[in-house]
């Protein structure tokens, strides 16, 4: 059987800290095992670059984004007949599709926020609800050993872990409003708030200490030993940290309007619409057996993201169905 031809157009490839880049790379990895893959990335200069397992084709983007297809910036032309996967379906990416008259065999990863008028089919990244529907679960690795030893910076476990919602480099010593509400409502509980690579422990409305979170393993340790994880602003594509927490059996609480609410839909936690509801839904999860039940369901659900081979199989089925 011949392999399908897949073209990935990625604007996020080099933004290593973004979740979109993580998912795009994960998807490219899976596609490379079951398809003939070409990756085009938006760049400041042209040429071909070895990037990990991939030889990516750099396309020099102008101020309007992707250049037109007849431009000399395209050292290789993307095949019009191949399956296109676009990470950021922006106006310029859609213009590219339109110039080829390409309507079929297109999938997107991110949402079409700057081109809402043209909704392209997105890759479904949660378990499909029906047998016929096809979805792709990007492999979300965690180190199970992180569950064996707690983070040495704190001398306690069973805390409420909060990934905060502020941008930039805020001083973690001044809590985000949600953390202030949480430590006031759950006075006797440790609230560990993580932002910008630092974790601040609050208890009884007072700061108890701040530690650095140097590595992903540090973060996993904090996930693994939390009683509940509250993600105030989950990742926009899959809510990666939420999946990681679920993989350690830590229930999650996430905004109702976030992508991560999909994960909660299968029982691994709760959603909220505002801070008042956050305090309300969190309370039962701090006690057994509600926490235990959510933990178990979350673990079962997160299996969807736990196996790289299954990820490749899902990608193969997805591409065959197009």
């Amino acid at each position: 059987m011949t392999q399908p031809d897949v073209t990935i157009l990625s604007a996020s490839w080099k933004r290593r800290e973004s979740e979109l880049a993580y998912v795009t790379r994960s998807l490219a990895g899976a596609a490379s095992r079951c398809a003939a893959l070409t990756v085009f990335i938006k760049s400041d200069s042209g040429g071909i670059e070895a990037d990990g397992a991939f030889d990516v084709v750099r396309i020099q983007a102008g101020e309007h984004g992707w250049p037109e297809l007849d431009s000399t910036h395209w050292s290789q032309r993307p095949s019009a007949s191949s399956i296109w996967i676009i990470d950021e379906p922006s106006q310029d990416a859609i213009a590219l599709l339109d110039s080829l008259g390409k309507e079929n065999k297109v999938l997107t990863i991110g949402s079409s926020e700057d081109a809402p008028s043209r909704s392209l089919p997105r890759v479904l990244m949660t378990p499909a609800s029906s047998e016929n529907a096809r979805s792709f679960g990007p492999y979300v690795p965690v180190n199970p050993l992180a569950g064996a030893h707690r983070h040495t910076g704190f001398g306690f476990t069973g805390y409420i872990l909060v990934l905060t919602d502020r941008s930039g480099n805020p001083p973690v010593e001044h809590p985000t409003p949600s953390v202030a509400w949480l430590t006031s409502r759950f006075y006797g509980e440790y609230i560990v708030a993580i932002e910008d690579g630092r974790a601040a422990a609050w208890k009884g409305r007072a700061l108890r200490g701040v530690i650095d979170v140097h590595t992903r393993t540090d973060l996993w340790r904090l996930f693994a030993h939390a009683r509940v994880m509250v993600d105030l602003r989950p990742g926009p594509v899959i809510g990666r940290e939420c999946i990681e927490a679920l993989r350690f059996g830590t229930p999650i609480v996430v905004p109702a309007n976030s992508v991560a609410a999909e994960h909660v839909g299968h029982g691994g936690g709760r959603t909220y619409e505002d801070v008042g509801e956050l305090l309300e839904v969190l309370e039962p999860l701090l006690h057994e057996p509600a926490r235990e039940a959510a933990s178990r369901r979350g673990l079962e659900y997160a299996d969807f993201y736990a196996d790289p081979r299954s990820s490749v199989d899902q990608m193969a089925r997805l591409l065959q169905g197009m």
Partner: protein
Amino acid sequence: MEQEPPRMFRMPTDPPEPLPPLSADESMVRLHREWARNHEPSRSAHFGSRLRGRARAVRLRLSPTITDRYMGDVVRAVDAIARRCDELSERLTRLSVVTDDLARSASEEVTELRTIIEQLRRHNQGTPHSSDR
């Protein structure tokens, strides 16, 4: 939530570990031991030593020097201060526990009340809370 978030405390309200009683402090024990050694009959096995000790104790009782009297007063005063310190430290410990309990219950209950007020406000404005649906 539109309300201002609660203010944080500058210091934890946790009650500290109770202070060890001052009257059991090593310096106090030593003071009493030395005082007793000098003012009580010797418990030495030798008859001569016991006799000398008893004679010294009797002499001190019958005609204490000014220094002896002064030292006796100092020891009693130190004892009284230590007892009072222990009473105060016990009261402080109890007070810290009460303060922590008060801060805890006030914080949790006021936060809950503020949440309920917010829900009612939303309800009155016709935007029901999702958990009401």
